C-alpha cells in the first residue's frame, strides 16, 4: 500500500511536469490554450495510460485534471468544461482498448491507431455539443439584437474549429502515442541489471559514426526547412522524406518514428505564422509525415521480416536436399555392400556347385543344364558387378578420391583413345583433408561423367583435371575437343543430374563450351562446399 502510494505520487509528479511542459509547447504553436490541451498533453496521457496498469490510472488522470482545472482558473477561462469532459470520456475507451492491447507490435499499433482516431472523434463530439449549447444561448441573445450577417459567421466558425479539434487530436496522438510505446518497450519491458564495476572491462558501444550521420542529417533537414527560399517551397517537403526513409530502412518503424519526431522539430522550427490556415498546414504536414513515416517503416519492417523468413526457409530447403543426397548415397552404399557380400558369394557357390554337378553328372542333358547354370550365374555376376560400379564406385572406398580418379582415367582408356590427361591435385599440406562422403562421391561421379562424355564425343587430344581444396573444393575438367552448342548443354541426363546434385549440396556448376572458334573445347567448373 505504501509502495502503491509512493509510486502513484512519483508518477503523478513526473506526468504533471511533462504534461505542463507539453502544454506550453502546444500552446506555443496553436495559440489557443484549450485546443493546446488536445494536442500533446492529451496524447501524452493517452500514451501513458495505455501502457500503465489500471491501478495507477488515478495518478495519470489526476495529474491531468488538476493541471486542467488550475490552468483554467489561472487563465480565467471557466468554460473549459468540454476538455475535462473529453478527458473523462476517454477513460472507458482506453479501458476497453487495453483489453485488446497485447501481443505483437502490429496488433499494438493497430489498437493505438483505433484509440487515437476514436478519442479524436469523441473530442469532436464533446466539443460540438458544447458549441451547440453555447450557440443556442448566444443566438438567443443575438437574435434579440442583431441581424443575419453575424449569424452566418457564427455558423461557419464552429465548423472550422471542429475540424481543428479533430486534426489537433489526431496529430498529437500520432506523434506521441507510438513514442510512448517505444519508451515503454525499451525501458520498462527489459529486466535491468544494475551498473557494476564490471563495466570497466566492457567496451563502449557508441556507434559514433551513425550518431554523427544522423545529427548531420537532422541539422541539414532543419536548415532545409528554415533556409530554403520561397521559390523552392515545393522542394522542402521532399527533404523531410529523406531522413524518414533512411531511418526506416535501417531500423524499421521505430526508426521512422524517430525520424518523424526529428522532422517535427524541424517543421516547428520553420513555422512561419500563427494564422489559422498556417497552423492547419503545420498540423496536417506533421500528421501526414508521421503517418507516412510509421506506415513506411512498418512496410519495410514487414518486408524485412518476410525476407528473413524466406531466407530461413531457403536454408532449410538446402539442408533438406543435402540430406537427401546423403541419404541416397548411404542407401546406395548399403545396397552395394549387400549385393557384393551376399549375391557375390552365393553366385560363386552356385558356380562351384554347377561345376561339381558337371563333373559328377554323365548324362548330356544334365551336363548341358549344369553349363547353362554356370553361364547364367556368370551372367548374373557380371550384371551385378556392373550394377555395383553404378551404385557405388568401389575404387573410391578402396583407394581414396585421388587414386580413384587416376584409376578412372586408366579404366576409360584415355591414352588409348589419343587423349593425354593431366591431373593436378592441389591439396593443402598443413590441414587434414576431411571430405564428406557425399562430396567425394559427387566429385568422383562428375569426373566420371565428364570423362565419359569426352571419350565418347569430344575428339579431344588433351584433357586436364584440376582439383583444388580451399575453403570449398574446386574441380575443373577441361578439354580441347570439338565442344558442343550451348543449347545442347545439359541435354544429356547424366550432366543434368550432376548439376542438380551439386546445387542440392549448395555448390555451383558451370559448363561452358566453345565450338567452332579458334580454341574449341569444353570446360566444366564445379565448386562444392567441403561440408
Amino acid at each position, binding site marked *: 500500500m505504501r509502495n502503491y502510494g509512493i509510486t502513484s505520487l512519483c508518477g503523478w509528479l513526473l506526468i504533471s511536469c511533462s504534461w505542463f*511542459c507539453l502544454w506550453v509547447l502546444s500552446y*506555443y504553436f496553436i495559440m489557443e490554450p484549450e485546443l493546446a490541451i488536445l494536442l500533446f498533453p492529451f496524447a501524452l496521457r493517452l500514451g501513458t495510460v495505455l501502457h500503465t496498469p489500471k491501478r495507477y490510472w488515478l495518478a495519470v488522470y489526476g495529474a491531468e485534471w488538476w493541471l486542467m482545472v488550475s490552468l483554467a482558473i489561472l487563465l480565467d477561462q471557466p468554460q473549459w468544461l468540454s476538455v475535462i469532459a473529453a478527458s473523462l470520456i476517454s477513460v472507458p475507451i482506453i479501458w476497453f482498448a487495453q483489453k485488446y492491447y497485447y501481443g505483437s507490435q502490429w496488433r499494438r499499433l493497430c489498437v493505438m491507431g483505433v484509440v487515437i482516431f476514436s478519442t479524436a472523434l469523441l473530442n469532436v463530439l464533446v466539443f460540438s455539443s458544447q458549441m451547440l449549447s453555447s450557440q443556442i444561448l448566444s443566438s438567443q441573445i443575438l437574435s434579440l439584437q442583431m441581424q443575419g450577417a453575424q449569424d452566418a459567421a457564427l455558423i461557419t466558425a464552429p465548423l472550422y474549429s471542429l475540424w481543428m479539434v479533430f486534426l489537433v487530436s489526431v496529430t498529437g496522438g500520432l506523434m506521441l502515442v507510438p513514442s510512448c510505446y517505444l519508451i515503454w518497450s525499451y525501458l*520498462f519491458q527489459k529486466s*535491468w541489471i544494475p551498473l557494476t564495476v564490471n563495466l*570497466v572491462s*566492457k567496451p563502449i558501444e557508441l556507434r559514433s559514426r551513425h550518431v554523427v550521420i544522423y545529427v548531420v542529417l537532422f541539422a541539414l533537414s532543419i536548415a532545409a526547412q528554415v533556409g530554403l527560399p520561397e521559390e523552392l517551397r515545393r522542394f522542402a517537403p521532399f527533404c523531410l522524406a529523406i531522413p524518414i526513409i533512411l531511418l526506416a530502412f535501417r531500423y524499421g518503424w521505430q526508426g521512422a518514428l524517430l525520424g518523424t519526431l526529428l522532422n517535427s522539430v524541424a517543421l516547428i522550427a520553420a513555422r512561419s505564422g500563427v494564422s489559422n490556415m498556417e497552423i492547419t498546414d503545420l498540423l496536417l504536414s506533421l500528421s501526414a509525415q508521421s503517418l507516412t513515416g510509421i506506415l513506411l517503416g512498418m512496410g519495410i519492417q514487414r518486408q524485412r521480416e518476410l525476407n528473413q523468413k524466406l531466407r530461413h526457409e531457403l536454408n532449410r530447403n538446402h539442408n533438406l536436399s543435402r540430406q537427401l543426397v546423403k541419404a541416397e548415397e548411404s542407401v546406395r552404399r548399403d545396397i552395394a555392400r549387400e549385393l557384393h557380400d551376399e549375391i557375390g558369394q552365393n553366385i560363386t557357390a552356385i558356380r562351384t556347385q554347377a561345376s561339381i554337378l558337371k563333373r559328377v553328372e554323365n548324362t548330356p542333358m544334365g551336363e548341358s543344364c549344369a553349363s547353362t547354370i554356370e553361364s547364367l550365374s556368370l551372367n548374373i555376376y557380371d550384371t551385378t558387378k556392373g550394377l555395383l560400379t553404378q551404385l557405388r564406385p568401389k575404387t573410391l572406398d578402396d583407394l581414396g578420391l585421388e587414386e580413384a580418379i587416376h584409376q578412372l582415367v586408366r579404366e576409360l582408356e584415355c591414352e588409348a583413345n589419343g587423349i593425354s590427361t593431366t591431373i593436378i591435385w592441389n591439396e593443402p599440406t598443413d590441414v587434414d583433408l576431411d571430405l564428406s562422403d557425399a562430396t567425394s562421391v559427387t566429385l568422383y561421379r562428375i569426373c566420371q561423367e565428364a570423362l565419359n562424355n569426352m571419350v565418347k564425343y569430344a575428339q579431344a587430344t588433351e584433357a586436364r583435371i584440376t582439383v583444388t581444396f580451399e575453403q570449398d573444393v574446386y574441380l575443373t575438367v577441361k578439354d580441347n575437343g570439338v565442344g558442343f552448342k550451348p543449347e545442347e548443354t545439359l541435354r544429356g541426363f547424366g550432366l543434368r543430374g550432376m548439376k542438380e546434385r551439386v546445387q542440392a549440396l549448395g555448390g555451383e556448376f558451370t559448363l561452358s563450351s566453345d565450338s567452332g572458334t579458334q580454341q574449341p573445347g569444353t570446360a566444366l567448373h564445379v565448386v562444392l562446399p567441403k561440408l
Partner: protein
Amino acid sequence: MIGFLKSEQHVQPVKDPKQIDELYKYWRFHIMFTMYAGYALFYFTRKSFNYAMPAMIADLGLDKSDIGLMGTFFYITYGVSKFLSGIVSDRSNPRYFMGIGLVMTGIVNILFGFSSSIVIFTLLWMVNAWFQGWGWPSCSKLLTTWYSRSERGFWWSLWNTAHNVGGALIPLLVGVVTLHYGWRYGFIIPGILAVFVGLFLCWRLRDKPVTLGLPTVGHWRNDTLELAQENEGLGLTNTEILRKYVLNNKYIWLLAFSYVLVYIVRTAINDWGNLYLTEQHHYSLITANAALSLFEVGGFVGSLVAGWGSDKLFDGNRGPMNLIFAIGIFLSVAALWLMPLTGFVLQAGCFFAIGFFVFGPQMLIGMAAAECSHKDSVGAATGFVGLFAYMGAALAGYPLALVMEQYHWAGFFTVISCAAAVVGLLLLPFLKAQTSDVNVVVS
C-alpha cells in the same frame, strides 16, 4: 597528510549480530542527518556571495565583469579541488575531512566579510572554492560505505536534497541579514554557522563501518551486488586503482561528459534565470528570484523521484531513469523558451519542471560514477566527474555570456536545449552495456 586525517585503523570486530544491527541503524541515521546538515551549510558558504552581490555592487562599486571572472575562477578551483580532494579523501577519514573543510570555508567567509578589495575577494573566494571541494567526495564516500547497492538510490537522493535545501535557504538568510545589517554580516553569519556545524561534523561523523568494528554494509545487508563491488580488484595499489577504475574507465568519461552538459543547463538556469525573467518578461527582481526558488523546490522533488524510480522501477540501474529525465530536460527547457505568456505561475511552473528534470541526472550521474568504480576510488571517481561538472558550470558563465551577446536569448536557449539533447545521447551506451547481458522481455 596530517595524522588524524588518515583513515582510522580497524578496531576489534563486533561479533554480536544484534549489536551490529543496532550500531548500523544508529549510525546510518545519524550520519545521514549530519551529512545533510553539513552539506546544506556548505551551500550557505558557497552561495553567500551570489546573493550579497547586489548590495556589494551598490556599496563598493564593483564591476560586473570582475564578478563574472570571480565566478569562473571559483568554479574552476572548485572543480579541481573536488577531484584532488576526492583522491585524497579515499584514503582519509571523512569525519575530519568534511568537518575541517566546512570550518575552513566558514573562516574564509568571515574573513571575506572583513575585506574590501577586489584582489583579496578573488583570492579568498578561490581559497573558499578549494575548501568547498572537500565536502562532496567525503559525502560520496560515506554514502557508498554506509548504504548498500539496492537502497542507495533512495538514500543518495535524500542526501542530494541538501543541495536544494541549502540553495533555497541561503537567499532568504543572506537577503534578510543583508537588508538589516549590511552585506558584511551576510558573510559573517553564514561563516560562523559553518564553523559551528563543521565542529559538529568532526564530532558526529564516523569513518567506514569497518573502522567501527562493523562488517561491511554488503555483508550486513547481504547484498550480492554490493559484495561484488567490495571484492572487485582486491590487492591493487592505490595508483593502479585510480588508473584502472577512474582515469581509464571509459564509462566514467562518458558520465563526466554528460555531467558537463547537465551542469551547463543547471548553472545557466540558476545564474541567468532571473536576468531572463526581468529582461524578457519584465519581472521585478523579487518575483524573479521567487520564481527561481521554485527551481530548487523542483530539484528537491525531482532528485527524490529519480532516486526512488531508479531503485524501484529499474532495479538499481541508473541508465533508464537518466534517459527519461534527459528527455524531460529537453522538453522543459523548450517550454521555458517558447512560453508565449507572461504569468508568475506559468514561468515558475517551467522553472519547477526544469529543476525537477535537471536534478534527476545531476544526482544519478554522480551516483553512477560512484557505482562504476572501485570501492576505494569512490571519492576520486565522483570528484573526477565533479571536476567536469564545474567545467560545465564555468562554461555556463563567461562563454555563455558571449553567446548571448551575439544571439540573444534565442542563442542561450539553443545552446542549453542542444546540451540537454546530447545528455540523452551520451547516456545511451549505458543502456546498451547493461542490456547486452540479460535481455528478457517480460510481457
